């Protein structure tokens, strides 16, 4: 097992560049690219801040961050799936299902053969909904690992099945009253979406919690190194002893839990749960991950990048609403930002390859450059 850690490629292969003019230039460009999502975010905040005096206020920043939290939590899970070279299209449907499960439980679960109605406490509702999310992930993982269904297809199938399940459970209707009642002792669900801890909304704390956990898992834990290893070269990782199937299944379960959490926050904000909630959320999460610089091929990307990606999307969307820009333009601009992010990513790849070639050429001496380039 321990050999796996050693043989896994480093998350970020930064080759030392020579102190020549070209080396310095490449290094500067590289840094700019690395930070491009952050730069984009600051530019956004600055531009909207100038255009509207209600944008750059503490209150609005908190509100926007709370809006971002939903997509950010999804993006943390999505990033980990994408790191291992997969994709999870079922998260949007899981958002809807988790809300519906919370709705059923909070409005009273009728157990037919006992003829009783059970009202579980809020903490149990949250745990059960998260477990349902993990269950969806487990099915995704099983389809991918045991049945060798391509992740895109497996999770696409689950996108429909999970949405269908949410509609079947709710019979297409919305659960309108998730407030609970004091007599039944199940009040307090609205805390997730509307509550505050030391002045900061709970949803933001949850985002921080999920991001920190994701960051720890990917950067510090063996699990993370395995993820990068599988995403980099699955066969090599397997030969090196990485428990590929276990890691893959776990990562879909994590993504399912993230999606369920997002679903609970939405249901809590609205104190109602609709089975249609979360439609196309999977695409927002993928967009955040891509803007954050991850590669859809796997093996490259960071939690912090996905987080910033979610902030870029959210702060842009809310800024356009504050300015009163037409919905049609909002959609166009969002699409353009995603495409631009990928173009920049390609450019960065080019600079990094060039940088690697220059470094290799210096290391092996002049004249060897073509061979070094071929090796990268």
């Amino acid at each position, binding site marked *: 097992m321990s050999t796996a850690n050693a043989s896994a490629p480093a998350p970020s292969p930064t080759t030392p560049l020579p102190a020549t003019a070209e080396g310095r230039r490449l290094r500067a460009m590289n840094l700019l690219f690395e930070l491009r999502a952050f730069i984009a975010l600051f530019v956004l905040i600055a531009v909207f801040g100038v255009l509207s005096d209600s944008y750059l206020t503490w209150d609005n920043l908190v509100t926007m961050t709370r*809006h971002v939290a939903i997509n950010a939590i999804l993006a943390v899970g999505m990033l980990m799936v994408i790191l291992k070279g997969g994709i999870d299209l079922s998260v949007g449907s899981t958002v809807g299902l988790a809300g519906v499960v919370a709705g059923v439980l909070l409005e009273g679960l009728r157990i037919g053969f006992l003829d009783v109605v059970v009202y579980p406490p809020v903490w149990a509702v949250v745990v059960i909904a998260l477990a349902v999310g993990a269950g969806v992930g487990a099915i995704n993982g099983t389809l991918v690992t045991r049945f060798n269904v391509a992740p895109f297809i497996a999770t696409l199938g689950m996108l429909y099945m999970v949405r269908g399940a949410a509609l079947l459970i709710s019979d297409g209707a919305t659960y309108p009253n998730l407030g609970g009642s004091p007599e039944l002792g199940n009040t307090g669900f609205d805390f997730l979406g509307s509550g505050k801890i030391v002045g900061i909304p709970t949803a933001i704390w949850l985002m921080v919690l999920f991001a920190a956990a994701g960051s720890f898992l990917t950067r510090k834990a063996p699990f993370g190194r395995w993820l990068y290893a599988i995403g980099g070269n699955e066969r090599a990782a397997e030969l090196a002893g990485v428990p590929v199937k276990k890691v893959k299944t776990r990562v879909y379960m994590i993504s399912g839990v993230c999606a369920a959490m997002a679903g609970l926050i939405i249901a809590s904000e609205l104190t109602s749960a609709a089975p249609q909630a979360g439609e196309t959320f999977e695409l927002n999460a993928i967009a955040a991950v891509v803007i954050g610089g991850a590669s859809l091929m796997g093996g490259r990307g960071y939690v912090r990048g996905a987080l910033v990606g979610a902030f870029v999307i959210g702060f842009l969307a809310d800024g356009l609403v*504050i300015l009163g820009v*037409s919905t049609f333009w909002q959609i166009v601009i969002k699409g353009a930002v995603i495409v631009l992010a990928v173009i920049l990513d390609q450019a960065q790849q080019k600079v990094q390859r060039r940088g690697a070639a220059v470094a290799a050429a210096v290391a092996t001496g002049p004249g060897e450059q073509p061979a070094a380039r071929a090796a990268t």
Partner: protein
Amino acid sequence: MKVHPKRMRFTVLVAAAMSALALAACGSDDDNAAESTPAAAGGGGEAGGLISIITPSADNPFFKAEADAADAKAKELGYKTSVASHDDDPNKQSELIDAAISRKAKAIVLDNAGADASIGPVRKAKEAGIPVFLIDREINATGIATAQIVSNNAQGASLGAQDFVKALDGKGKYVELVGKESDTNAGVRSKGYNDVISQYPDLKKVAQQSANWDQQEAFTKMETILQRNRDIDGVIAGNDTMALGAVAALKSAGLLDKVKVVGFDGSPDAISAIKKDQMVATVLQPAALIAEMAVEQADEFVKNGKASKPEKQSIDCELVTKDNADEFGVFARL
């Protein structure tokens, strides 16, 4: 091929679980997509046969009420029914109409997938000798469908706007949440609102956004709009789902007491919000009534071979306020 017994067991288990799921799905499909036998065996001499009911989606209570009402009425009159949804996809709608033609349906009751995109499929059905009764949404052509029975969105919007103006005493700042901008009804309702409200110069619209008929989107956009305009007095929304999203945002901002919210559709959730003083009013579209009318007219057409009513029929909407909220059920007067 050798299979490890343990893995085999697991595989079988998963396969069994999945087929159980699929079966469960098919089971409840029965009330929706599959044919159901008539409750009563034929009323009049020529009644009976299949009525195909096609609506946009089953996951919206409005369309569900419509489909349920048509289904119940058709069975009551002695028909078999087939209920399906096209999910606002003109292509899927066309396929469903093809299916109805090949199954020799006696009539099609259709809530269509687009005023222009639906003309072709409806004509196709007419040429195959199947009368089409459009409900809820019109198409941009006459003489093809046997009937086009819609609720009067313009009249409804005007009702809603008048009550909105009354609730605001004819002055103040307000926000309009518009439906999906590609949807005809979104435009008709928005125009209906503005025709009334523009007569009151002291009412100022400070923001207008589309929230795509969606509750969560309305919630997010409303919160963002409130960042710039905390001093608003009212919100008028193109449907109830968006109105309820706005209610949630206003509640979390602590503004629900002073901001008046008006919606459209008359959904059960909105009516309960009106009873709790969270919304001022909504405009009820008699979806169930319209669906029943369409089936009754289809029945008459089957029996007499000709339409009993003019093609274009517009049914008035009703205003639901706290005073009369108890009189309404699921998209219908009780």
